């Protein structure tokens, strides 16, 4: 009994292998026949147009993505929409991994069928790993603001947001500034999404705290000092917030991107009265970046994914997840922006700060030297 089952398994495996061997080879050849090999195409035009790209991608039939949480910037819906539209199966690995994990996975799985095809990265990680990317310019390239794209198309902003304070309105009063969090009403209630020496969101949280306490993008020491005070006051919670900790009431105040906080509002509607505020005196923004793996096992699908993300449809899906799509201004002018979704974004106005690379590097040095002491 067991014997035959094993034999049958081996047989099926061998047959499957043979099938893969038989069917797996043609697509790259076809891709090559249609002009440019998919792996080096720098635009849809090099395929002979978007339709040709769609065909090549469909022939590959699969797309490997990594580190895309379904409740982050609406990625769950984006993946489903892409699958439905092109009939390409999306394999989403390690949804909770960090940007650096994405690069590590690409290096470790290089040459294999399971390596990630595309990346969604924090700017730090993107700038440090350009040797892993293939340049590719989407058809809507011109709409992306110059400061948010690498000129040859190695990486470019996809969606962004502002640092915000999410809070359970039934448990705490509405904060209007960062300093409010030092009040006794917030005792044992304020959580930061991650360790700022490791997680990009938490890093920006410290920058926000700095702006709200007399610091600047050039000087984040007041931000570190703020968290030290927060801890001394007994208000700082060293718990990693998640939808579960928010729902169970363990983390009534969470410092995180406005789109992740806003996603909680929608998700927990009826259970927790979760509200989001971007402090007026401390608006820190940042964009994530999209890039194609130069060793992508599905190079055409990887490029089609980019085209989809930067199409009106993809950008509006980001917006529905309450993140700010990079083509937002251009789409607003062209009238293709989903106005109802845009109206739901947390209110921002006043001075907005985006860190430059030098400011960011300087801030990192400060953090690595002082963070552990501040909260330890």
């Amino acid at each position, binding site marked *: 009994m067991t014997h035959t089952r094993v034999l049958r398994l081996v047989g099926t495996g061998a047959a499957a292998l043979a099938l893969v061997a038989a069917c797996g080879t043609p697509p790259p050849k076809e891709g090559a026949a249609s002009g440019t090999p998919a792996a080096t195409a720098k635009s849809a035009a090099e395929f002979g147009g978007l339709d040709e790209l769609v065909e090549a991608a469909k022939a590959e039939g699969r797309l490997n993505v990594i580190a895309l949480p379904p409740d982050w910037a609406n990625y769950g819906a984006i993946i489903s929409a892409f699958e439905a539209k092109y009939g390409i199966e999306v394999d989403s690995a390690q949804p909770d991994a960090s940007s650096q994990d994405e690069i590590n996975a690409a290096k470790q799985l290089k040459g294999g069928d399971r390596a990630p095809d595309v990346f969604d990265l924090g700017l730090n990680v993107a700038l440090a790993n350009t040797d892993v990317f293939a340049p590719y310019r989407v058809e809507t390239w011109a709409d992306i603001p110059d400061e948010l794209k690498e000129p040859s198309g190695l990486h470019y902003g996809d969606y962004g947001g502002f640092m915000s304070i999410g809070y359970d309105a039934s448990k705490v009063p509405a904060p209007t500034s960062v300093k409010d969090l030092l009040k006794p009403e917030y005792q044992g209630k304020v959580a930061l999404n991650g360790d700022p020496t*490791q997680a990009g969101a938490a890093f920006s949280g410290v920058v926000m705290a700095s702006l709200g306490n007399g610091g600047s993008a050039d000087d984040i020491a007041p931000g570190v000092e703020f968290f030290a005070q927060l801890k001394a006051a*007994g208000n700082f919670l060293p718990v990693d917030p998640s939808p579960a900790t928010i729902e169970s009431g363990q983390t009534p105040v969470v410092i995180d991107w406005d789109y992740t906080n806003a996603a909680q509002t929608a998700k927990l509607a009826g259970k927790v009265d979760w509200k989001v505020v971007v402090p007026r005196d401390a608006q820190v923004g940042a964009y994530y970046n999209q890039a194609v793996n130069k060793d992508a096992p599905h190079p055409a699908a990887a490029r089609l994914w980019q085209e989809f993300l930067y199409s009106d449809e993809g950008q509006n899906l980001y917006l529905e997840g309450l993140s700010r799509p990079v083509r937002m201004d251009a789409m607003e002018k062209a009238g293709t922006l989903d106005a109802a979704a845009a109206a739901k974004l947390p209110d921002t106005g006043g001075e907005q700060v985006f860190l430059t690379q030098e400011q960011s590097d300087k801030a990192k040095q400060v953090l690595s030297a002082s963070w552990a002491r501040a909260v*330890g």
Partner: protein
Amino acid sequence: MVAPVTTAAGKGPSPGPCRRRTDSGPSRARWTAWLVVAPFLAYVGTFLLYPTALVLAGAFQDGDGAFTPANLAELTRGVHLQAFLRSIELSALTALLGAVFGALLSWAVATGRPEGALRRVVIAGAGVLAQFGGVPLAFAFLATVGFQGFVTTFLRDAFGVDLFATGAWLFELPGLTLVYTFFQIPLMVIVFLPALDGLRPQWREAVDSLGGSSWTYWRHVGGPILLPAFLGSLLLLFANAFSAYATAAALVSQGSPIVPLQIRGALTGEVLLGQENLGKALGFGMIVVVTVAMGLYALLQRRFTRWQ
């Protein structure tokens, strides 16, 4: 978990009888012996020696693969040095707590009836709880004495006692000490009980019949016999706590107070980049500390077996 150190791995076939056989005899026996250990060697090579070699090599390289002592030099400074000191402190403290309470528990078991319920329950419980670590253990503590844990809420609602009045201790070193001790005590029972069982009643009777008191017995017989076993267990517990990662990773998200958490930060952090080799240097430092502990353990073990 640290596997107990195994001593001499058998003496192999004695040369005498082999000589009388044909020449192919000993070589075939040797080949068979190699064949039998080959899977083990392959396993150890793949999952222990190779990763260790990678860590050792990486610890002395910079981002481009060139030799540099900078990573190790980094360990002697600031947060990294503190993390080592804290890790050693945490491991030593929980090893001591585990050893003392575990030894007392073992003693209670050893003096009880050999087939008694106490013994069976404690041995079964220790076997299970010594392996109860990582995320499940952290979760168990969060569910009981976390911010919304049922013990916390019960104490708050019924008696107005706030467990977290002094701060978020469960998510810091005091919390780690408590949680680590939870798996150290049962491990102590497992490794120390055999030594207590090895005390022969006749020795006690001999002391009694020669007019010695209970104190004389422990001072001159029981104590000296048990001491090496106790110290050896202490070192084992130390290494066990020092190498623990998952429990701490699940509980502590801020500040990376101990070395395993700093390694996590160096390898997966997306803010401070290019620290992979620093992570390997931290790993190298851990190997050194554990090697020292296990070396002392081996020395004690040798002394202990001489007493038997």
